[in-house]
C-alpha cells in the first residue's frame, strides 16, 4: 500500500474520531441546556442513539446509501457490510466515517425533542431516521459508481452538498420538526396567553464545553469529507473555522441592537449555525465567502428562533434554528459562493446551480418531513410517543430510568417535608457535592423552623382555649387538643370534618346546640366578630357556652381561617349566679318586710277568720244560703293559710304530708274548672296525663293548690283559648344534679309539668323567671309560688322555646312507703350494693335489712371489688351510672362479672343509655331495675337471685 493510501486512511480514521467526539459535544450541549431532572435521559439518549444508528447502518443503511444504485434512488447491496482485499482498510475507514455521520444526524433529533419523549419511542425514531430517511437522502447526493462518478439522481443533476448541510443537518432538522409538531411543547414552555416562557438550562458551562467539542469535531466532519488527505484540506478547515466564527460573532453583534443581555445559548447556536452553513460548501469557497455564509447562517438562526416561538413549536436545544434552516442556507449558498477556480472550472453557471440546489433542498425536505410525519403520526395512534404530564413533571430521569441523583434525593426529601409537614427528619446530605452544601444549609433552616414550630406547637398544645383552622370551604384542617377535648374528638381525626358539623352539630348523641333564637345565625367565616355558641351536653346534662372568634389569613393563595374557641360556661354561670344572688337579696329584703308585716297581721287575720268561721257556724241554717257556705270555706282556707304561715315561721318549712298526687290533681283540676275562679280555666282546654302514677309526694296540699293555681293561670293565659295546656305527671330519678335555670339535687321526684303552646320566653329572661312577678301578667306572683314549693323541699324549673311554648315544672320529693316485706324466706344472703347516692343506699339497705339480708355498700366499683375479696357475696346490685366513678357503666360490670361470674348482678339506673344496657344484659346481667325503685319489685328480684345463687 502506498504512503498516500495510508495517509488517506489515517486521515479518514482521525476525522471519524473527530466526528465521534461530536457525540460528546452534543451530549454536553443538550444536557447543559435542559433541566437537571432530565439530564440523564438526554445524555443516555445520546449514547444509545449512536449505538443503534451505527448497528443499523452496518446492517442495512450503508448498503442503501452507498450500494450499487437502482436508478439513482437507492443502493441495492453492501448490507451487513463486509469486504476483503487490498481496499478493505480504506473501505472500512470510509464506513466508520460515514457511520459517525449517521449517528450525528440522529442525535440532532434527540436535542430538539428533549425532555418529553418516551425512551423507547425515541429509539424507534432513531431507527426510522437511520434506515428510512438518512440513507435514501445520502444515496441521492453522495453515492458514486466504480469510478467515482455520481450515481445518485440528485448528484447526477449536479446537486452539491460537500459534508452534509442538507444530507445530515437539514434532514435531522426536518425529522425533528415533524416530531415537534406531533408531540407538542414541553409543559410550561408557553403560558396561558401563548407567550414563550424561558426554561433555563441546568449547566451552561457544560453546554459551552459541548459547543467547543462540536466545533473541534467539525474539523473532522468537514475535513474528512474529502475522504483523502490532499491539498484541499487546509482550505476546508479554514472555511469551517471561519464559518463558526462568523455565526457566533453576528449573534454577539445583535446583542447591542436588541438591548438584551448576552444569551449564551443563542451565541453557542450561532457558532453551530455558522458551521452548518459552511458544511455544504467549504470545499468550494474562499475564506471571505465562508465568513459571510457563517454570519448569514447566524442571522437565519435568530430568525428561526423567533419563528418557532411564534408558531409555538418548542425546540428544547434550538436544533431546528441551528441545523435545519442554516443547513438549507448552506446548501443554497453553494450556488452563490462557489469559486470557479477552486472548482476547477472556467466559470460557474450560478442560476443553473441554484436551480439544482433548490430542487435538492425541496426534495430532501419533502422526503424527510413527510415520511417521518406520516410514520410517527401512525405510530402515535397506537403507542404514545410522549410521556405523561406527571412523568414529565417528575422528570425523565426518574420516570424513564428510575435514576437517582443527590439532587433528586434532596428534592424528594424536601417534597416529603412539604407533603407531611413533619420537620423532625432532615434531608440527606451528600458530602463534597454542591447539592450537599445546599442540603446542609436547608437543614439549618429546618432546624430553626423546627425550633420555632416546636415552641408554637407547645403553645398550641397547652393552650386551654380551643383552636381550629379551616379553609374557605369550611373543611377543618387542624385542631388543638383543647378543642378536641371540648368536642370529644381526637385532633388527628379532625381533618375533613366540616366546621359547621364541628361547631354547630345537628345530630350528635352527646351534644346539642341550643342557640338562642334572638341571636344572629352562627357563621364561622365572620372574621373578627365574637359569636356565642350555646350547647347542652346530654351526658352530664350541663349547659355550656363558648365564645368563637375567627380570623382570616392566607397561605399559598389559599384562604385559611383560624377559630379561637373559649369556654365561658363558668363565667356565664358566675354572672347568672351573681344576678340571681342580687335578685334574691332584693327579694330577701322584700320578704323580710312582708314577713314583718305578716307577723303583725297573721294573728289578727287568724282571729278574724276564726270569728267569721265561728259566726258562720252559729248562724241558723233554716234558710240555706250558698253565700254562707262560701264564707265558711274562705274562712277555713284563711285559717289553713295562717296555720301554714305560723308553721313556716316556726319550722322554716311548710307542714307536709304524703299525698297521692294523681287523685289530688284530678280533684284539684276538676274543682278549678267548676269553680271558674278565673275565666281562663273555663275557656282553655286542659289535657291531663297522669301516667297511672300511684306514687305519693310529700306536699302541703293547700300551698300546692296555691302554686298550681298561679302556674296554671299563667299557662292558660300563654296558650290562649284556641290552644290548650297539658298537665303531666311523671316520676323520675335524677342521677346528676340537673343544672338549668335551677340546680336540683339528685334524688327521686314526682314531676308535674304544665306545658303551654304560647309565644315562649326569651332565654335571657329564664334565669330570673321565678324572681318576682310575671313580666307580662303582673298579677301573677311567681316568686311566691317558687317560695312555697321550696318550703315543701321541692324545686321549680322552666324551659321555653320562643315560638313553641313554655314548660313549667315542679319537682316534688317522692314519699317512700316502706312496705313491710314480711319474714325473710331465706336468711343469711349477702348483697353488695354499689351506689353513690346515699339516700338510696340507706333506703335499699333498710329494705334488705328488714328481710334479714346482710348488705355491703360501696360507692365505686373498685371499692366494691376490694370488699368482695374479703366477704362472700350472693347478689350484686349495681347502679350503672356512678357519678363518683367515671369509668363505671359497663366497665365496672365487666370487672365484677369477669372475676365473679357465679354471682348474679342486678343493674339499675335512671336514664341509662340503651346501648349500655343492651351490652350488659348481653354480657350476663341478671336483670335490670329502673329507678326510682319500686320496693316490692326490688325485693322480689334480689330474693329471686339470692335463691338462685344458693340453689346453684
Amino acid at each position, binding site marked *: 500500500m*502506498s504512503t*498516500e*493510501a495510508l495517509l*488517506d486512511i489515517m486521515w479518514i480514521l482521525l476525522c471519524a474520531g473527530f466526528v465521534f467526539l461530536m457525540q460528546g459535544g452534543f451530549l454536553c450541549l443538550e444536557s447543559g441546556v435542559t433541566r437537571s431532572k432530565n439530564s440523564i435521559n438526554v445524555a443516555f439518549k445520546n449514547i444509545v442513539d449512536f449505538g443503534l444508528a451505527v448497528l443499523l447502518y452496518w*446492517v*442495512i443503511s450503508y*448498503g442503501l446509501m*452507498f*450500494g*450499487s*444504485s437502482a436508478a439513482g434512488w437507492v*443502493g*441495492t*447491496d*453492501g*448490507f*451487513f*457490510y*463486509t*469486504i476483503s*482485499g*487490498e*481496499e*478493505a482498510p*480504506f*473501505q472500512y475507514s*470510509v464506513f466508520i466515517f460515514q457511520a459517525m455521520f449517521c449517528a450525528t444526524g440522529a442525535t440532532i433529533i434527540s436535542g430538539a425533542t428533549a425532555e418529553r419523549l418516551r425512551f423507547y419511542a425515541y429509539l424507534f425514531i432513531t431507527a426510522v431516521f437511520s434506515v428510512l430517511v438518512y440513507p435514501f437522502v445520502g444515496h441521492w*447526493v*453522495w*453515492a*458514486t*459508481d*466504480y*469510478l*467515482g*462518478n*455520481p*450515481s445518485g439522481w440528485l*448528484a*447526477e443533476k*449536479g446537486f*452539491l*452538498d*460537500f*459534508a452534509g448541510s442538507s444530507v445530515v443537518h437539514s434532514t435531522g432538522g426536518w425529522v425533528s420538526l415533524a416530531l415537534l409538531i406531533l408531540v407538542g411543547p414541553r409543559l410550561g414552555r408557553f403560558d396561558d396567553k401563548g407567550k414563550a416562557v424561558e426554561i433555563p438550562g441546568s449547566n451552561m458551562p457544560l453546554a459551552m464545553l459541548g459547543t467547543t467539542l462540536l466545533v473541534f469535531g467539525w474539523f473532522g466532519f468537514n475535513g474528512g*469529507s*474529502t*475522504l*483523502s488527505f*490532499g491539498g484541499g484540506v487546509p482550505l476546508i478547515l479554514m472555511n469551517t473555522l471561519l464559518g463558526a466564527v462568523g455565526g457566533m460573532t453576528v449573534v454577539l453583534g445583535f446583542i447591542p441592537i436588541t438591548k438584551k443581555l448576552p444569551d449564551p445559548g443563542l451565541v453557542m447556536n450561532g457558532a453551530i449555525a455558522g458551521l452548518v452553513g459552511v458544511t455544504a460548501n467549504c*470545499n*468550494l469557497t474562499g475564506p471571505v465567502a465562508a465568513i459571510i455564509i457563517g454570519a448569514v447562517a447566524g442571522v437565519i438562526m435568530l430568525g428561526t428562533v423567533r419563528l418557532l416561538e411564534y408558531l409555538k413549536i418548542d425546540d428544547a436545544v434550538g436544533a431546528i434554528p441551528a441545523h435545519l434552516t442554516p443547513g438549507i442556507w448552506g446548501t443554497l449558498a453553494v450556488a452563490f459562493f462557489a469559486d470557479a477556480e477552486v*472548482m*476547477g*472550472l*472556467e466559470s*460557474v453557471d450560478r442560476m443553473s*446551480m441554484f436551480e439544482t440546489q433548490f430542487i435538492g433542498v425541496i426534495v430532501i425536505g419533502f422526503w424527510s418531513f413527510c415520511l417521518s410525519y406520516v410514520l410517527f403520526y401512525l405510530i402515535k395512534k397506537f403507542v404514545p410517543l410522549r410521556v405523561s404530564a406527571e412523568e414529565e413533571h417528575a422528570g425523565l430521569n426518574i420516570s424513564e430510568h428510575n435514576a437517582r441523583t443527590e439532587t433528586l434525593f434532596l428534592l424528594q426529601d424536601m417534597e416529603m417535608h412539604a407533603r407531611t409537614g413533619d420537620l423532625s427528619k432532615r434531608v440527606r446530605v451528600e458530602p463534597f457535592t454542591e447539592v450537599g452544601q445546599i442540603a446542609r444549609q436547608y437543614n439549618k433552616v429546618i432546624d430553626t423552623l423546627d425550633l420555632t414550630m416546636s415552641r408554637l406547637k407547645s403553645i398550641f398544645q397547652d393552650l386551654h382555649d380551643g383552636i381550629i383552622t379551616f379553609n374557605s370551604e369550611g373543611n377543618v384542617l387542624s385542631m388543638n387538643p383543647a378543642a378536641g377535648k371540648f368536642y370529644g374528638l381526637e385532633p388527628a381525626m379532625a381533618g375533613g370534618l366540616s366546621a359547621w358539623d364541628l361547631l354547630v352539630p345537628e345530630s350528635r348523641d352527646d351534644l346539642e346546640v341550643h342557640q338562642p333564637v334572638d341571636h344572629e345565625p352562627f357563621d364561622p367565616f365572620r372574621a373578627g366578630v365574637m359569636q356565642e355558641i350555646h350547647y347542652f351536653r346530654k351526658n352530664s346534662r350541663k349547659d355550656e357556652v363558648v365564645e368563637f372568634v375567627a380570623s382570616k389569613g392566607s397561605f399559598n393563595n389559599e384562604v385559611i381561617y383560624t377559630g379561637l374557641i373559649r369556654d365561658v360556661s363558668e363565667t356565664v354561670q358566675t354572672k347568672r349566679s351573681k344576678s340571681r344572688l342580687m335578685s334574691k337579696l332584693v327579694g330577701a329584703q322584700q320578704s323580710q318586710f312582708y314577713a314583718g308585716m305578716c307577723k303583725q297581721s297573721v294573728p289578727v287575720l287568724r282571729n278574724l277568720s276564726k270569728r267569721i268561721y265561728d259566726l258562720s257556724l252559729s248562724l241558723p241554717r233554716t234558710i240555706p244560703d250558698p253565700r254562707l257556705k262560701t264564707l265558711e270555706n274562705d274562712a277555713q282556707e284563711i285559717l289553713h293559710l295562717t296555720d301554714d304561715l305560723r308553721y313556716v315561721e316556726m319550722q322554716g318549712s311548710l307542714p307536709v304530708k304524703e299525698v297521692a298526687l294523681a287523685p289530688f290533681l284530678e280533684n284539684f283540676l276538676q274543682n278549678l274548672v267548676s269553680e271558674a275562679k278565673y275565666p281562663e280555666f273555663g275557656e282553655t282546654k286542659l289535657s291531663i296525663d297522669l301516667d297511672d302514677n300511684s306514687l305519693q309526694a310529700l306536699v302541703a296540699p293547700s300551698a300546692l293548690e296555691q302554686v298550681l293555681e298561679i302556674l296554671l293561670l299563667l299557662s292558660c293565659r300563654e296558650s290562649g283559648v284556641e290552644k290548650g295546656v297539658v298537665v303531666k305527671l311523671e316520676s323520675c330519678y335524677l342521677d346528676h344534679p340537673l343544672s338549668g335555670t335551677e340546680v336540683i339535687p339528685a334524688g327521686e321526684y314526682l314531676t308535674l309539668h304544665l306545658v303551654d303552646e304560647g309565644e315562649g320566653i326569651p332565654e335571657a329572661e329564664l334565669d330570673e323567671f321565678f324572681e318576682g312577678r310575671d313580666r307580662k301578667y303582673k298579677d301573677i306572683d311567681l316568686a311566691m309560688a317558687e317560695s312555697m314549693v321550696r318550703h315543701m323541699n321541692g324545686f321549680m324549673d322552666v324551659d321555653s322555646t320562643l315560638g313553641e311554648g313554655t314548660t313549667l315544672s315542679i319537682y316534688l320529693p317522692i314519699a317512700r312507703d316502706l312496705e313491710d316485706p314480711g319474714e325473710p324466706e331465706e336468711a343469711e344472703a349477702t348483697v353488695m350494693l354499689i351506689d353513690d347516692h346515699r339516700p338510696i343506699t340507706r333506703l335499699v339497705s333498710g329494705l334488705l335489712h328488714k328481710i334479714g339480708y346482710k348488705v355491703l355498700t360501696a360507692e365505686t366499683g373498685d371499692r366494691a371489688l376490694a370488699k368482695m375479696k374479703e366477704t362472700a357475696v350472693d347478689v350484686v346490685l349495681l347502679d350503672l351510672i356512678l357519678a363518683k366513678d367515671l369509668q363505671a357503666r359497663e366497665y365496672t360490670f365487666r370487672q365484677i362479672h369477669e372475676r365473679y361470674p357465679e354471682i348474679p348482678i342486678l343493674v339499675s339506673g335512671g336514664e341509662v343509655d340503651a346501648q349500655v344496657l343492651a351490652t350488659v344484659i348481653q354480657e350476663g346481667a341478671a336483670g335490670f331495675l329502673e329507678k326510682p325503685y319500686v320496693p316490692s319489685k326490688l325485693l322480689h328480684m334480689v330474693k329471686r337471685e339470692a335463691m338462685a345463687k344458693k340453689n346453684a
Partner: protein
Amino acid sequence: MFMKLKIILMCFISFSALWAAPSSIDSLGLPEVPENRYQLDEWEKIDREAEIWYTFYTYYKSGEDEVKHGLWIERTRSRDRERHATDFEETRKIYYEGEVSVHSVVSIWINGVLRQRDYILSEDLRVTVKFNEQGQEMRGPKANARGGRAKKERIIRVFNDVYNLTN
C-alpha cells in the same frame, strides 16, 4: 415471529455475500506493478519521420526469445513532423511475462502541455482527466461530488504508480 426475523436476516446475509459491495474499486482489478526481475533490458526507438515516432519497452531473454515484461510506451505524432515532440498521443501498457495488460493509459499533449489523460480499466470503464492550456486540471461540477473525487484519485494514483506517470 423470531423465526421469521431470523429467516429474513439470513436472506440479507446471503445477498450480501453474493453482491459483496461491487461499488468498490477493489472489485475492478486495478493495475499491479509487474514482478521485479534481474537482467531486465530496455528497448527504445526514436524515428522523427515515422508516425509512431517513439517506442519503448522492457524485456528479458528467455533463450533466444525476447519476453516483454514491464512498461510499454508508444508515441504517435500529429501530421506536423516538426511538432512531434510537443503534439503527440502517448499510449502506455504493461506487459506481464509477455502478456499485455487489459488496462492502459492514453495521454494527449498539445503545445507541450498535457491536455488529457485516459486511465482505461477496460473497454467500458475509463477515467478521463482533462487539463487546460496551463496544465491545470479541468473538472466538471460533478467532479466535486463528495467521495467520488477521492475514489477517482485513488484509481489515478494507482495507475500513475504502476505506469510510472508521477514524473
